[in-house]
């Protein structure tokens, strides 16, 4: 899950009850303390015993590994040859690892800022609605689940097929609202039907259409799901002064249909654009009705009937979310989905302590809501925002699970990040533990400023 949280600011747990802060309490007890005993009079070795398990675990599994990784990072893949800083040089020169460094940079800049900005907006807005708590619960909940589960959830969201992945389903719906969707991708006449195909995918009936005899336009090759709900095709009736015809799916389920003949039960192809073309000019056009029939004005008589290629183009298939160029932003979005709630909860807590008088005073002075937000709320929240940002940055630096799960094999290299490369270098596909160690040391160095900041803070607090 959420391995991380308030990284930046290690902060004291429970708020000290007023007038009883720790130094005082300790001072009072200190007076009675014997020389070689603890505050409460227990012998010193007891303190040692209490600390022993923690020190052993921390020493063996946290502190010693730091030293070992540092040392190991100066040796080659086998661990025998000293290579100095070569491994570090490789981190910044090797193509795959450079991609990881670059992506990590994008991650560290974009993900925390977006999550914090959204958290701020949500925190401010939820204060004004009665069901704010319910909303917060919805947004905060993803923090409780594993990055693996979140990864699976978003793999499905980003599925390429618009019939499966909701992201592309929405993209395609929006796209098709503004551009007509080809009604029957892949549909075409049988070769023996004698229609001419032109380069743009249009089909033209070679003989000229006449007003008296309805034209039959049999097509095959339509996708099953495009046809499944269609009505049965009907033969067009001749109408005086009009040019009519039927476009239908010349295929009888279960077989037995005759080619080029409108057998009972064969499906209509509705919504197909039909044009009458004379000397390369479109003189009339119509769209087939639900029973597959169309009616062109009498002026079309003598022209050639054409079915434009737009009818049969492959439909717009949405965005390749997990392709090389979008895979990192797509995964960042899933991260924001998980962590905006964290930012929101911390910021909401900070917001609750902003003195209302200040906000009201600003409003009385005629400030608009936006000005109040921008000039009063945000500056007052600055410390919280900083804490949230730093925490998320530390967390994002080590991002691994989401990338490992969401990026498909083909674009995993494009989505590479340091922690993933470290995993691959250490235990995965391209093993070189020297490089792996160098990356881990690099990650550690990046958090050292926060480490020092935390130490200084605690020191200051304790001196107070």
């Amino acid at each position, binding site marked *: 899950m959420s391995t991380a949280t308030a990284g930046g600011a290690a902060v004291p747990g429970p708020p000290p009850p007023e007038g009883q802060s720790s130094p005082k309490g300790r001072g009072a007890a200190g007076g009675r303390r014997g020389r070689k005993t603890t505050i409460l009079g227990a012998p010193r070795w*007891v303190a040692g015993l209490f600390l022993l398990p923690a020190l052993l675990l921390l020493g063996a599994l946290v502190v010693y590994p730091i030293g070992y990784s540092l040392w190991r990072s100066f040796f080659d893949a086998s661990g025998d040859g000293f290579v100095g800083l070569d491994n570090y040089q490789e981190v910044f020169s090797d193509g795959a690892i450079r991609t990881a460094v670059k992506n990590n940079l994008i991650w560290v800049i974009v993900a925390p800022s977006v999550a914090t900005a959204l958290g701020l907006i949500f925190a401010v807005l939820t204060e004004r609605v009665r069901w704010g708590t319910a909303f917060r619960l919805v947004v905060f909940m993803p923090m409780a689940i594993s990055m693996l589960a979140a990864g699976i959830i978003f793999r499905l969201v980003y599925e390429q097929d618009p019939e499966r992945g909701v992201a592309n389903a929405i993209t395609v719906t929006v796209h098709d609202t503004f551009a007509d969707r080809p009604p029957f991708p892949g549909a075409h006449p049988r070769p023996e039907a004698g229609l001419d195909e032109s380069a743009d995918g249009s089909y033209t009936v070679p003989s000229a259409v006449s007003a008296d005899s309805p034209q039959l336009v049999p097509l095959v090759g339509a996708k099953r799901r495009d046809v499944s709900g269609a009505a049965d095709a009907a033969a067009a009736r001749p109408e005086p002064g009009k040019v009519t015809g039927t476009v239908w799916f010349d295929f009888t389920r279960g077989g037995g249909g005759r080619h080029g003949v409108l057998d009972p039960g064969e499906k209509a192809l509705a919504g197909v654009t039909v044009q009458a073309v004379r000397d390369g000019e479109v003189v009339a056009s119509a769209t087939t009705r639900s029973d597959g029939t169309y009616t062109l004005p009498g002026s079309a008589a003598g022209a050639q009937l054409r079915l434009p290629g737009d009818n049969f183009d492959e439909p717009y298939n949405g965005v390749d979310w997990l392709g090389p160029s979008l895979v990192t932003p797509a995964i960042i979005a899933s991260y924001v989905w998980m962590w905006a709630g964290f930012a929101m909860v911390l910021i909401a807590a900070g917001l609750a302590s902003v003195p209302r008088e200040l906000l009201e005073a600003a409003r009385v002075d005629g400030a608009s809501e936006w000005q109040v937000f921008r000039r009063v709320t945000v500056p007052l929240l600055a410390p919280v925002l900083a804490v949230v940002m730093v925490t998320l940055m530390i967390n994002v630096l080590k991002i691994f699970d989401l990338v490992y799960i969401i990026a498909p094999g083909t674009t995993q290299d494009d989505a590479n990040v340091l922690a993933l490369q470290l995993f691959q270098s250490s235990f995965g596909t391209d093993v070189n533990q020297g490089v792996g160690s160098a990356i881990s040391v690099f990650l550690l160095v990046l958090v050292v400023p926060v480490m020092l900041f*935390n130490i200084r803070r605690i020191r200051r607090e304790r001196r107070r």
Partner: protein
Amino acid sequence: MTSAEGVAAVRVPAEAERGRSGAGVRRSLVSRLAARAGGGAARFFLIVVGLVWLTPTVGLLLSSLRDPADVGISGWWKVFGDPGQLTFDSYGDLLSNEAITDSLWTTAAITVPATALVVLVGALAGYAFACMDFPGRDGWFLVVVGLLVVPVQIALIPVAKLFGEIGIFESTTGVVLFHTAFGLPFAIFLLRNFFAEIPRELLEAARLDGAGELRLFFRVVLPLGGPAIASLAIFQFLWVWNDMLVALIFADSGNPPITVALQQQVRQFGNNIDVLGPGAFISMVVPLAVFFAFQRQFVSGVMAGAVK
């Protein structure tokens, strides 16, 4: 809520109420109208965002409740037009799949000890730091604070080697120890701060009654530390339960926890959705139950600043 104020480094929430009533100020009609319109827009915005936030999870949930054959050809939203598609078959199949049920047990066998150990070892050390005196106490504590942000990545290679040498590489024991060690800095930090607030008089009274150090620790300190321990335990529990990276490296690959078992299926995402969908939800049941049951503690754990 424990340390909201602490994290925020701003003052205590109680002031909020005072502010609201104190400002019995007449606002102009225009600004009130603007506020109302703004409120409508805010409400609309939040509803949309709420739906957007729910959609991915609902999508996987509905997918996991459909026949795998349906999932292959159409989107989960088709369920709304045809609720008859819903079935628990995938869940039934999954729960009769021994590899999956075993992996759930492995997850529990890692998570429970790793949580209990972090609480116990962290409380022992936190108590020593808070209430005992020994040379270099403050210095040692600053070391612990420094370790708060150490990334687990630094320890993967060395600990794998170390575990290999003592024969616990690829074992549940190894995973438990690793999680315990990396949970300790936060545990010690959180509990020390909490224990430091226990009134000395209470401890001394217990001592005068003749309680030994251990008895004092188990009978007085641990119960008093309840709220902090609850936050810590929930936090550690969720972290370990949801972990994939550490398990990927240190767990027994023949008997992996649920995260790793599912991860192995992800490469063939399209074909394995009938396992991955319900599998993801089964793996989420426990963390979500813990989350809903102990929201307050979880939030205060988050606020207290778990740093991993």
